[in-house]
């Protein structure tokens, strides 16, 4: 069974929306509360490789895309979650599932101010010590 069908089947009850940009680029929207379970299935059971996560400030809320690669066929599956609460954004950390998420969660935390619940070592990765608390460089409200 192609990996895409398998993902559809395993995540069937979690998928809100699915968008296939091309046969090798699939974007799947899920609810933040389903994230840990869904990534667990992708990484542990279907053996996809975690590539990176990318956070973005959108008018609807803070969005994170978790990009996974299935290297046997060269497909990239991106899980999209939207955190609507911009005041106190929170999501579960994936670092306990795979350590590779540790750095990028620290980066998203300092750049967009999203708190990763359960992260073992949530401290600054790239920003300098002197950078003011509560200022998030990738939030659009900073722009003139």
């Amino acid at each position, binding site marked *: 069974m192609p990996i895409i069908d398998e993902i559809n089947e395993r995540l069937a009850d979690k998928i809100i929306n699915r968008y296939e*940009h091309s046969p090798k*680029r699939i974007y799947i929207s899920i609810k933040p509360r389903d994230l840990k379970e869904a990534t667990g299935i992708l990484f542990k059971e279907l053996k996809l*490789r975690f*590539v990176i996560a990318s956070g973005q400030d959108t008018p609807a809320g803070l969005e994170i895309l978790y990009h996974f690669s299935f290297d046997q066929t060269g497909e990239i599956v*991106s899980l999209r979650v939207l955190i609507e609460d911009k005041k106190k954004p929170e999501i579960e950390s994936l670092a306990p599932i*795979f350590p590779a998420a*540790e750095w*990028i969660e620290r980066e998203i935390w300092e750049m967009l101010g999203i708190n990763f619940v359960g992260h073992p070592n949530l401290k600054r990765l*790239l920003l300098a010590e002197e950078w003011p608390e509560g200022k998030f*460089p990738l939030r659009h409200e900073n722009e003139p």
Partner: protein
Amino acid sequence: MSHKVIVPIGPYHPLQEEPEFFKLYVEGERVVDIDIVIGYMHRGIEELSEHKHFDQVTFLVERICGICSNSHPFAYVNAVEDLAKIEVPERALYIRTILAELERLHSHLLWLGLAGHFIGYNTVWMWSWRYREPVLDMFEMIAGNRNHYAMMKIGGVRRDIKDEDVPILKKVLDDLVPAVRMFQGAVMDDPVIKARLKGIGILTKKQALDWCVVGPTARASGINIDVRRDEPYGAYDRVDWNVIIEKDGDIFAKTIVRILEMYESIRIIRQCLDKMPKGQIDADVKDIPPGEGIGRVEAPRGECFHYVRSDGTNRPIRHKIRAPSYMNVASNKIAAVGGTISDAAITLAAVDPCYCCTERLTVIHKDTDKRIMNGWDLIKLSQEKTEKLKKDLGGG
């Protein structure tokens, strides 16, 4: 009484392209823990990119790294071409591939030289960099620059490879083959190099999977991944070549992977030069529609990943960049711990982060004396170990 000492390595050294700061926690000779601090080179390029138009970003991302200065723009144009579904002219695909492989050659030769220097083989260092020079000259011939080639463009390349340059390029490749063979022999047959690199800094397959490492670091641990084959871009699906896999996950395996990859690079370039069709090199792209695109490239250090989102204006609204070292450096937490301090320099360098940040090394005894070591001391420690091994093995 055990003596826990912190050895901070870094953050700056003239040889690095990315300053990093490794805090090694040492008990006697043994590394018991490591703390990796990065961010010294954070220039806010992702944010900057949101304020430039699509064509300018190509030049911006070229400046992320001086060694992979072809890989980032390559991944970026792949991402935009994925977003806008642009067909790139055939000839441009071949030119891109040739550039990417020349870059791998010069980058692997650079690493080989540094690795040689770290373990006290300064001859390897000098020779390897000597053979890197003609490769850089080829870049100058094709692009006009030895680094920062400015060749990539959304929809194609900015300069053609002239017909009269092809024989010169082929000659350089022909001369490079015996050199790579020499390095291969030097590394594989030398008992001292073997003693220094075998079984050191091991990253097992399981660990490599958990830390999601990429490139030669992953392939040396037996993980069969290579973006060039898994999701072909450029002209990689039109030429014949092999992915190099080793099983042991130690520094020796990483070295072998890189050396053997150089042969494959030479093979790819030769085939590209022969098969390259005549014609356009630019698709003449006008507008970028709204949407999102992902581009990736197998850089010399592994998969380089770019995500671009457009809202239909002439600037990206989000541009996420992930360099391969982002995943590989983090895995040093596994590879360096448990090893000895004299192996630390080569272990941390083995993922090829261009790590050489030993310039500002300080050794602080936690309770007792404070003393300062400079970067040379760590390299000297490593070189002395090689000297001792040479004596023990009765050779020279």
